[in-house]
């Protein structure tokens, strides 16, 4: 059973580092707080906690202070936007001109991008404050940050546990009060799974909703940037700031961007909403505490008036396997550019071939090499049809499962992960066990649909997360459901008990 609410963590306080972004916005606009004060509070907390938690690869203190001062000017002029003066953590695979972008890889140690990612440009334009570049598994390949070439981030709820991954850095930062909001990327669950492990809200938007320009590519047909926040409303706020078509990304969609925050207004009455539950998400190896918390959450949604409808997603069981063909295949090409010729690590040797081999041999970690090899193999002549082509066919079937289900329901709920955060080191020797932690999140990437992770209780003192999957470009509905659920419980008002 989920642990009683009072038994885990502490209630949120009035400190700026505990407040939601929406509440910070209100206080900044009311001049009860200045952006400088908010930023200093966050920088102080980073200074206090991060030597232990290690959420950040680079802390951008000087940039943050300058942005905070500019934000205060802007607020004084009455020109504040929703994110003006709000401190944000950026996953270190998003290009920034004023801090290095490493993807937590030795091959990009010290790399400074000459351009900003589109999401960074949009946040900059909105007056957000960048606290730093947060940790990730190397090139976003992993589920625990243990594949970071630099260090492993610790889970704020239990520092012996992983924060999840790959976006474990921003997830842990938001959970620990080291950032009000975070941006991550999700290729197979890299936002939702760490959001779940860290007890925060995480959203993978519909593929094409947010520009990928300036996101260091892992698997181009699956990658999507999305928000971390302490509340669903905050996630809606951040999504609104980054969503929308970008001429620099041909896969970004022309769909209009609704006012996500406004979609949350109104009461929590879910009558008339049909929510699907799929038996395929009840797998062996799911922890009892997770199942109990998720079942309770489904019950709560029913209490709020939603109709719970069984749906079938028969191809779910193939998602993991097809993902581990598709994603490495794309990655094997995406990572070819890191060759020691133009930027990043270069181990110059006698011959060109040796330079390539030594640069990549020394620059990439074991998991990245494993995926490059997997992907290269899957694309090789003689194997391409059996692996890559077949995986794309299965991918179409997975998408069709969702299309058919969404003809009958408005959203589908499932656990975000089969387990709570596992101990650091527990799965590093067994890649397959590590891959299994994304078994519930991968299908949404394969189908391109949006998925929201919302805290739904605790098991063994660690957060459990409810995943709400939606129709393509219907983030508004899953945000509304997540918000209604969140308001009916109190999980997102809890904070990890840190010094």
């Amino acid at each position, binding site marked *: 059973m989920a642990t009683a609410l009072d038994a885990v963590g502490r209630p949120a306080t009035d400190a700026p580092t505990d407040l939601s972004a929406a509440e910070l916005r209100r206080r900044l606009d009311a001049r009860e707080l200045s952006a400088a004060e908010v930023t200093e509070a966050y920088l102080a907390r980073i200074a206090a906690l991060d030597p232990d938690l290690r959420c950040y690869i680079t802390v951008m203190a000087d940039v943050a202070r300058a942005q905070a001062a500019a934000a205060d000017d802007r607020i004084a002029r009455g020109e504040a936007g929703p994110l003006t003066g709000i401190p944000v953590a950026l996953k270190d*695979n*998003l*290009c920034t001109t004023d801090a290095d*972008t490493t*993807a937590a890889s030795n091959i*990009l140690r010290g*790399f400074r*991008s*000459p*351009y900003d*990612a589109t999401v960074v440009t949009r946040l900059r334009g909105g007056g957000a404050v960048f606290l730093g570049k947060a940790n990730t598994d190397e090139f976003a390949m992993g589920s625990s940050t243990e594949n970071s070439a630099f260090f492993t981030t610790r889970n704020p709820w239990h520092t012996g546990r992983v924060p999840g991954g790959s976006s474990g850095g921003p997830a842990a930062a938001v959970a620990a009060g080291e950032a009000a909001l975070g941006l991550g990327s999700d290729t197979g669950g890299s936002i939702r799974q760490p959001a779940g492990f860290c007890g925060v809200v995480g959203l993978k938007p519909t593929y094409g909703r947010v520009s*990928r*320009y*300036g*996101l*260091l*590519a892992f*698997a*181009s*047909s699956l990658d999507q940037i999305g928000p971390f926040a302490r509340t669903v409303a905050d996630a809606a706020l951040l999504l609104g700031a980054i969503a929308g078509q970008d*001429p*620099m*990304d*041909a*896969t970004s969609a022309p769909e209009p961007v609704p006012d996500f925050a406004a979609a949350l207004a109104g009461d929590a009455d879910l009558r008339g909403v049909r929510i699907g539950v799929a038996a395929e998400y009840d797998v062996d190896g799911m922890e009892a505490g997770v199942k109990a918390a998720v079942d309770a959450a489904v019950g709560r949604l029913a209490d709020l008036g939603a109709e719970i409808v069984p749906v079938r997603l028969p191809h779910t069981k193939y998602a993991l396997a097809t993902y581990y063909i598709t994603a490495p*295949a*794309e990655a*094997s*090409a995406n*990572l*070819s*550019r*890191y*060759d020691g*010729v*133009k*930027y990043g690590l270069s181990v110059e040797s006698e011959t*060109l071939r040796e330079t*390539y081999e030594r640069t990549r041999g020394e620059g990439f970690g074991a998991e990245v090499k494993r995926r490059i090899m997997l992907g*290269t193999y899957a*694309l*090789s*002549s003689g194997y*391409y049809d059996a692996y*890559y082509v077949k995986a794309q066919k299965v991918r179409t079937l997975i998408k069709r499962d969702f299309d058919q289900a969404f003809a009958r329901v408005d959203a589908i709920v499932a656990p975000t992960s089969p387990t709570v955060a596992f101990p650091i080191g527990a799965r590093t020797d067994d890649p397959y066990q590590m891959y299994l932690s994304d078994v519930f999140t991968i299908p949404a990437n394969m189908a391109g649909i949006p998925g929201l992770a919302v805290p739904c209780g605790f098991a063994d003192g660690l957060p459990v997360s409810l995943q709400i999957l939606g129709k393509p470009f219907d983030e508004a509905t899953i945000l509304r459901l997540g918000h209604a659920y969140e308001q009916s419980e109190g999980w997102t008002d809890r904070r990890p008990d840190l010094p």
Partner: protein
Amino acid sequence: MPAPNDLLSVFETVIGLEVHAQLLTKSKMYCGCSAAYADAEPNTHVCPVCLGLPGALPVLNRAAIEYCLLTGLALDAEIPPACKLDRKNYVYPDLPKGYQISQYDLPLCVGGWLRFSSGGEERRAGITRVHVEEDTGRLVHRVDPGGAEESLVDLNRSGVPLMEIVGEPDLRSPEEARDYLIALRQVLRYIGASTGSMEDGAFRCDANVSVRRIGDPEFGAKVEIKNMNSFRAVERALRFEQERQQAALLAGETVAQETRGWIEDRGITVPQRTKEQAHDYRYFPEPDLPPLAVDESMVAGVRARLPELPATRRSRIAADYGLGPNEAALLTEERAVADVFEAAVGPPGDAASARVAANWIMNDLVGLQRQRGLPPETLPLDADQLRDLLAALAAGELTARAAKEVLPQITRGERPRDAARRLNLLSLDDDAAVRAAVDETVAAFPAAVADYRGGKTAAIGRLIGETIKRTGGRARPETVRAVMEDVLRKDNG
């Protein structure tokens, strides 16, 4: 060993050409950088996309797609309703992403053929496919001040739009291959898709060549030849290769299937390092670019831009204006030159004046063009100027001789008649001036005058010529003849 001519009755040569042509778009294939990199400082026409920086994404250049479709339509190719782009994976320092975005199994254009003339005969050769891709950067090898060899990468060319035109193995001789290439280049220039310049690397050709005994149903081993940088090089390399393979077969050897490079200054082909041949490019669909729907309205829009093509224009101009096949071929070699001809002459009618115009273009204007080093599509006169010149000649306001003198002195946009007036070269319509010149001539050449009067009327030719010379070529021969006859007759009486 039999003489080469006999070999042709024993062996058949089979040639297929793969042409890469740079497209004349303003910007690159997948980014907004200028594609006009020729004279730029290294690495100045670059951006995150064509540098292959982390996180950069390609965006398809519609103009390049349209040029490729235009080429496909010009070659009577089929345009499938959907196409996609693919990643071709290989690693080299001039390829910043580590893959080239090209097209694998769903190209923009499929099938088709090229009409061309070779050896005085009209031929046609099949086209397998036409697709778009991106050019690579360039490596510059040099010796640094310390004496060490170094290789530098210039990425200005990286991402410049390329079109690959794959031909069927329908060509049977090196000459035919050359004529095919010339005709293909001409089509690309007509439709404005490419400069077709081999010297600048905007038009590159690889050849597949094999030799088999006539009657053999199977093709011989295919040898791919690279590094040919001119039409002449293509022809020479193919001839060398043809003879090399024939000799091997005659000697009972087998021809290895391989890639060979043409060494221009030695006039031979040599085997190239074969790392490319064993290469598995691991093509897969480019996930950063959605598949491209080519709908009928897009094709119709491009088709509307298709000009009259060289082969059609050549035969039409020959028929309409009564010109010979060689004259028509010369006039239509460049679309802009043919345009000047047709605009200056107007609708077909008077064959004689069309011929005058053709002669002026092919002799005087092209001569002056070469002298001035102008590109082949740029004549020294535009159509309006040529029309004015032809009208002045027809009306006798300018003599042919004076016209040739005026021509190089005509300034940009100046009417030839204005230039002639400025230079005082218009025909003399002043009878008194002609009369004076005639009188001078008669006085200066008493012997010729006596001959004429003595019945040798042919002597008047010399007197007329001398008179025209005295007027600086401005006097019209007919006028001089009339006045001269009048004077000689009168003085006689």
